[in-house]
């Protein structure tokens, strides 16, 4: 998924390679790149499930406008992963409604 050599841009400036947790699994991404980019590079497409219909959602606008890509980041829900920079050891979780718990009935 990553572009190794771009005909016009050549290479992309990236931060250091860091580990992060996605739903408990260890993954790698580059520090400072949007969380959504690191996830997509790891093949993660589903960021959250909607509260009413449990529909999967992922990246849509990638510029922080549509809020479709929000996830639970370090315990905080509704974080726009397309504009939030990845940091080492970040804990990123799929969001269900506004919770990180699939069974949460309160939402």
């Amino acid at each position: 998924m990553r572009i190794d050599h771009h005909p016009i841009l050549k290479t992309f400036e990236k931060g250091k390679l860091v580990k992060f947790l996605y739903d408990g699994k260890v993954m790698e991404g580059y520090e400072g790149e949007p969380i959504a980019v690191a996830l997509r590079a790891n093949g993660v497409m589903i960021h959250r499930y909607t509260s009413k219909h449990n529909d999967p959602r992922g990246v849509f606008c990638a510029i922080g406008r549509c809020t479709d890509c929000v996830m639970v980041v370090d315990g905080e829900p509704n974080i726009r992963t397309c504009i939030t920079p990845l940091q080492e050891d970040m804990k990123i979780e799929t969001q269900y409604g506004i919770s990180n718990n699939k069974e949460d009935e309160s939402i």
Partner: protein
Amino acid sequence: MKRYELIIIGAGPAGLSAAIEAASNGMQVIVFDENERPGGQLFKQIHKFFGSKEHKAKERGFRIGEKLLKEAEDLGVEVQLKAAVMGIFDDKEISVMLDGRVEHYRANNIVIATGASEKMLPFPGWTLPGVIGAGAAQTMMNLHGLKPGARVLMVGSGNVGLVVGYQLLQAGCKLEAVIDAAPRVGGYGVHAAKLARTGVPFYMSHTIKEADGDSCVKGAAILAVDSSWQPIPGSEKYLEVDTICMAVGLSPMSQLARTAHCEMENNPLKGGLVSICNKYGETSTPGVYAVGDVAGIEEASSAMIQGKIAGAAISFDKGYISEAEFTTRYEEYQNSLMQLREGMFGHKDKDSADTEHTEEGYTLSQSLLSKGYMEAEEIGEYPGIYPAEYRSKGVFPVIECSQNIPCNPCQDACKRGCIKVSGKITNLPSVDTSVECTACGMCVVSCPGQAIFLVDETLAPGYASVAIPYEFYPLPEPGSKGLALDRSGTSLGEAEVLKVQSSKAMDETAVLTMKVPVEWSMQARFFQVY
């Protein structure tokens, strides 16, 4: 409350240009932008821009962005990032969300340059992961070096869809098709031709029926529509794609203008709800200006000029430049803007545009409009096509430019003066057969539409050379073999790479010269690596 002489909202091409103009006249300027990086969408634009020299034509968008930022910085313009302006109140006061706090600023003048957002098209499955905006694709691949997907369907054939489609190919994705509900390609024919000759099919009068998949996109069902936009039964096709990219138009982000009580109008020609502005970009609220896409959807090149006009008008109003100086500058900028608005894609009612003929009376290629490429038999008539009777004397340029687009870098590129765009900037370029071509390749790389080729039918008995612009990785080695494709992307047969030229002046567009049988000299327009 902090005070500035001029507040600009949005650090894209329009906002930065307004800031540069005003600051260069001595004004104290601050620019707010909600994003982490300035430049608006310019840094995602990796293609060469159209226009003329003063419009920064043949420069790539991100390089224009770098220059604007440098200029603004050198002039002491303050750029406040991660600052979302929430409203414009009476007496030109604004509230800004900064670091979780709300701050208030006031200025004598405000320029709204907030740009546009992407329009969307709802259809069954459109919320599935894998359905993205064309802007999202650009953000992923051109800013972050990530392919949005492996196999992509582009919905929309305007310039955004065509340009992003080409960028997807450059990133290494497969573009399965470009579809559009309209019967004709909406963007520049040359942009479509760049895709078509690599083999990308165009389905005009087609819409998307649904995105297929349970957890993310696995495919897309498309179907044909008739002239009244109704689905044609039995026309459904299934495309195996993992990404559906939407490029169905932009809409001005004019909410702030409403908060400033600007008089608004819903103008379909401008892309939606916009503030009503005078010729300097000033809204009905005195001292509040709107420039760039927020004032009506156009190109970044026009946005930059609109920014300069507003910057100059404000500078004059506040006494920073004389009336004479302002008049001179305004006329220069206005002429430049009007040039960009000329032609069949200009800022006017597109439905009234002649789809049969160019302004000079040449027949427009209907195949280019319906399939994305010109048929070989349509080529002959245009003034950029070297006449057959002169072709035996050696290498000659072939300019496959057939629509009235505001663009003329080709005439500056040829130092020998072989290429002329006479009269209006939108006129088709013509070739002068009395000038000998040295095959330097500068015209090939300077054409933002990649529509110029160099052909030599005297290469060897039975063989011709065809030089094409080439912007893919890796660059083929001289001596390597591959397929020569025609304008539709259909393979003609084997071709051999003779040479690959690239230099700093060519700005990452290589000139690839291939050897082909002479009968393909006016057909072979792309080289596909085996």
